[in-house]
Every structure is written in structure tokens, then in C-alpha cells.
């Protein structure tokens, strides 16, 4: 290798690697934590967005006493309210309501096993879930009162949005659809006869696995379910597809006015817990970033300070033999950049590996490496290294060679 300033920097780093490693570790670990949190948060955000896409409807009317901790189970075993509320909404002519799908859901026991029986209305029920469409459960396209609003979180295209806004067109009184978990547990197939509460039904559709509580649902006609459960004319929730622009213009308030004894909420509220978690993670990441910048800068600064002190005689000698301040600056700033580069790359590798390996266990998420984070890691690490190093370097360039000679 040709001897150059770079040779001096690398040789010195290798020569005194013990102290350098401790300084580098602070940056590496800091960047690793940030990358790991960002990787998890990013995937979690995508998962929430995907769930929003899958839900289709964006407003839910629930009884006053219902819990809304989880969208998927909000309607299960909730108190009920009259089905005629659907008509009340229709006759009120409130603009921005595209479609309504009333439901009644209850946990029942079949052969000692708990399942959720959900009544839906054909021609009303949104085949909102893309996997339902994949199963051939979609019917006529729904006429929308307004164009779908832009959802920045959504990964759906306009064509996808059109596709999800279709309705289920046929569900006879003696037909049921079963979730994948039910099908597996009770060993039923399309065409099987399945008894529920003393009445027999034909399984006409097997729903693909969704990974949600829907896998444990049996869907039947709403009015049949009401009779079976002995609560005729009652529903546990109404899913509404509302225009996002109307929602922001007070659609929820208008609905609350005509349905005062209900709880009306948007999906945004329902999935709020998950969104809040993501926001919290982002805040934690930001706080950690600030701490890491401070700790990393201090750690690198401390290392560089010690390095400059240790090399006073050497720096004095270099100045004596004709090195200018700019050469001293260059030598130390280049060293800081090298440390930042190494810390950024190592931090990215450690953080990404941790997220990929531990993500499925700790957060239930499959995480893929994000290459963009590598550039950010390098940029942040280099800036930390430079911020921590500037003062020791400033001092190094101002070492008085006369003092070095007098120390001899």
C-alpha cells in the first residue's frame, strides 16, 4: 500500500484499537437500537395500514356498552340495538353514507367448542375483505356517493378500492360460510351439512385463513341468526361505509344525533391502540436518538480527547516538521469520519439483524431489512462522530510545538 495520510490514520487506529473499540461501541449500539426500533415500527405501521385496507367499512355503530379495544371482537357479545336503526339512517338522508351492513354476533357452543355466530344481510354486507373476493364472494359493484378519499397509510390502488366496495349478493336462509379454523376443527367442506342450535345448514363457502378472529366465525343470514338466538329485530353493530370527506365534515356527529343511544366511532378510533403504540414507538425512537447522539458524541469526544492528549508529542513533532493545521485537521476529521462510517455500518447490521431475528418473537412481525436505513445510519453516525470530535481536533491543531520540545 502506498504511504499516505490514510495509512497513518488506519495504522494509528489499529495500533490503539482497545480504546477505539469502546468509543465505536457507543455509536454502534446506539445506531443498532434506533434501526431495530425503526424497523419494527415501520412494519407495524404497514400492518395497521393493511388492516385498515382489509376492514373496508370505516364507521361502526355499536351499542353504548360495547368495548372498542379491538375492531375484530367489538361486535362479539356486545349489547344489542334495534335493526330499524338502519332504516332510520336511510330515511334521515344524511349525505356521505354509502352502504350499511348490520350484524349480530354471539359466541355459541357447538359440540362443546366455542364459535362465533355472525348474522349478516346479503345485499348489505360489504365483501370488503380482499380474501373474500378471492373466494368468489363478491357480487354487484356498490354505487358510491363519493369518490374514495386518499388514504396515505393505505397501500391499495384506486382499482383495489373499487374492488373492495362490492357487496355480497347471495346468502340463503339455509346457507352458512365458515372460517378456516371452524372448517378445520369440525372437518367440514363445501356442501357439508352443519347443525347449529338444532337447525341444519349447508356450507356453501369456506373462507380462507385471515389470521383474525374471523377464522373462528360462522356467517349466516342475519334474520336466521336473530331467530336462532331469540333476539329478533336486534343487531350488535352496523358497519357503515362513509365518505372520508363527509366524516371530516361532521358525519359522525350527525349520526350520533339520530342514534343517541349508540356508540359511533371510526376505524381510526378503533385501531387507535395500535396507532398509539406506533406513535409511542416513534416517540421512544426520537428520545433514544437524542440520548444516543448525546452519549455517542460524548463517548467519541472522550476517546478523541484522550487520543489527542496521548499524541501531543506526535502532533507537536508533525507541526515541527512542517505539517500545517489543515493537515492535522484533515487527519483527525478523517479518523472521525472513518469511526462514524464503521459505527453506522455495524449499527445498521446489528440493529437489522436484531429486528429480523427477534421481531417475530417479540412483536409478532416478520421484518425485512430496509436498505434506506443503512444510509441514514451512516449519516447519523458520522455526524455524531464529527460532533463529538470537533473540539478535541480543534485543540490538536493548536498544540504548541514549543511546549512539546520544552517537555523533552
Amino acid at each position, binding site marked *: 500500500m*502506498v*504511504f*499516505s*495520510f490514510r*495509512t*497513518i490514520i488506519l*495504522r*494509528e487506529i*489499529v*495500533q490503539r484499537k482497545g480504546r477505539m473499540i469502546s468509543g465505536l461501541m457507543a455509536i454502534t449500539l446506539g445506531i443498532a437500537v434506533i434501526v431495530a426500533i425503526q424497523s419494527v415500527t415501520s412494519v407495524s405501521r404497514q400492518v395497521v395500514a393493511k388492516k385498515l385496507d382489509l376492514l373496508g367499512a370505516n364507521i361502526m355503530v355499536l351499542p353504548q356498552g360495547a368495548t372498542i379495544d379491538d375492531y375484530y371482537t367489538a361486535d362479539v357479545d356486545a349489547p344489542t340495538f334495534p335493526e330499524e336503526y338502519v332504516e332510520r339512517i336511510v330515511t334521515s338522508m344524511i349525505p356521505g353514507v354509502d352502504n350499511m351492513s348490520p350484524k349480530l354476533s354471539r359466541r355459541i357452543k357447538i359440540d362443546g367448542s366455542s364459535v362465533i355466530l355472525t348474522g349478516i344481510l346479503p345485499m348489505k354486507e360489504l365483501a370488503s375483505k380482499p380474501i373474500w373476493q378471492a373466494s368468489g364472494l363478491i357480487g354487484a359493484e356498490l354505487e358510491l356517493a363519493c369518490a374514495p378519499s386518499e388514504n396515505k397509510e393505505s397501500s391499495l390502488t384506486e382499482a383495489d378500492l373499487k374492488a373492495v366496495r362490492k357487496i355480497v349478493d347471495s346468502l340463503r336462509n339455509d346457507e352458512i360460510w365458515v372460517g378456516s379454523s371452524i372448517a378445520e376443527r369440525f372437518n367440514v367442506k363445501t356442501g357439508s351439512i352443519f347443525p347449529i342450535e338444532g337447525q341444519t345448514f349447508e356450507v356453501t363457502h369456506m373462507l380462507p385463513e385471515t389470521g383474525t378472529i374471523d377464522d373462528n366465525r360462522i356467517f349466516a343470514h342475519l334474520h336466521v341468526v336473530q331467530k336462532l338466538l331469540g333476539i329478533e329485530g336486534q343487531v350488535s353493530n352496523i358497519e357503515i361505509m362513509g365518505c372520508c370527506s363527509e366524516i371530516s365534515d361532521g358525519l359522525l356527529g350527525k349520526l350520533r344525533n339520530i342514534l343517541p343511544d349508540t356508540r359511533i366511532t371510526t376505524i381510526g378510533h378503533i385501531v387507535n391502540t395500535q396507532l398509539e403504540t406506533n406513535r409511542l414507538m416513534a416517540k421512544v425512537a426520537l428520545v433514544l436518538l437524542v440520548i444516543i447522539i448525546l452519549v455517542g458524541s460524548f463517548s467519541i469526544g472522550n476517546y478523541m480527547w484522550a487520543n489527542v492528549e496521548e499524541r501531543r*508529542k*506526535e502532533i*507537536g*513533532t*508533525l*507541526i*515541527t*516538521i*512542517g*505539517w*500545517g*493545521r*489543515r*493537515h492535522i485537521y484533515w487527519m483527525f476529521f478523517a479518523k472521525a469520519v472513518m469511526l462514524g462510517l464503521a459505527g453506522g455500518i455495524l449499527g445498521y447490521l446489528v440493529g437489522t439483524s436484531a429486528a429480523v431475528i427477534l421481531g417475530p418473537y417479540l412483536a409478532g412481525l416478520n421484518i425485512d431489512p430496509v436498505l434506506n436505513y443503512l444510509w441514514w445510519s451512516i449519516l447519523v453516525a458520522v455526524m455524531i462522530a464529527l460532533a463529538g470530535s470537533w473540539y478535541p481536533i480543534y485543540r490538536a491543531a493548536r498544540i504548541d*510545538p*514549543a511546549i512539546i*520540545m*520544552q517537555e*523533552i
Partner: protein
Amino acid sequence: MIDIRKLTKTYTRSQQQVHALYDVSIKIEAGSFAAVTGPSGSGKTTLLLSLGGLIQPSKGAVNFNGQNLYSLSPSQLASFRNRTIGFVLQTFNLVPYLTAVENVMLPMLPLGGNGADLKKQAVNLLDRLGLSDRKDFFPRELSIGQQQRVAIARALANEPDVILADEPTGNLDPALAEEILDVLEDLNKNRSKTVILVTHSPQASARAGIVLKLREGMLVS
């Protein structure tokens, strides 16, 4: 020619002014071999630092061929030192993690140039000082005499006109000291270098054509 005019360097210690040098005027012709002698604290090192552009005098001027060193900017002064002056120090001050040849190349780096050519020059210098077989040795692997010869080679790296040596034989036994003085004398006689030597040693000052004696910061002879 080096022309030192009314050079004074004053330090303030414990609220008292101390003259490290006081009103010193000397003229040293190019190609001279001068020894600066005197007891400890007489101002020898201060004079050497002033000659090397490493310490700002309180009064007076140091002219090299008519150019006052202290009228130069810091970067010009660094460049002047790099090209015109070679320093040989008592404790050699070799960079411990660089080999002998890399140490010799250190003054060449600010000037730039082809790395292979620079290395060739450095190897030639080591060869002239009898160290060609030690060029890839680290300082810790060299004897004290060899380390000082590497330091001399480093001082000659940019072919300076002037060699400033601060007690170059101070850490050496008499035989090695003779060897190093031979090298400096050879540089003076055969390569026309101006050598200015700060020393306590009568053996060293005996080699010089000019002997400058300092006492309490003043030139006494």
C-alpha cells in the same frame, strides 16, 4: 544567511517577567556549522525554537535570506519549515506505529507527489545513513543510534538548507554521539547544509566552526 536581530523573548511567571532571550543579535552565513552552548535555562532551546519559526518572539526579527519568518502567516510558516528546515530532536520523536521509511516520508506528505517516488527518496536517505536493511523496522525494533539516524534522515527528507539539532547526542553514549556528529559534520561539509546545534557537550561544540555562548538569555560570546 540567517540574520537574528535584537531578539527578545519574555515570559511572565508568577507575575514576574523573565527574559528567556534578551536582545540577541547573530548572523550565521549559509553553510556554517554553529553550536549554541550554555547552562540550563540560558535560552538555548528558545533560540532554536525562534530560529525554527516555532515561537513568536516578544521583540526582534529572524530573517532567512532577507525574509522575516514572523511576518509569514501560520500556513506559510509551516510550509517554510517543511521545505527549508530539518529538525533533529534529542528524543528523536519518531512516530511509534510507523516504520523507519514511513517516518522519513512524514515531511514529504504535505508536499504531495507520487507515493512510489517519495518512498524511493526515503529509502535512498536511509541508505545514505546506513539503514537500508532497517527501512521496514518499527522504532521499537531499532537501536538508539539507529533511531537517531532515522530522525536525521527524516530531517533531510525535503532537502532543507538548514538543520536545527536540539541536543542530538544528549541520549547517546560517547561512541554513538561521535557517529551522529560525523553525520552532521558530513552534511555540513559535503552537502553544504547549515547546521545549528544546541548542545551541552564540549565534544559536540568542538566540531562547530562557530560557538555561541548564552547566559541568562544573553549572548556572551
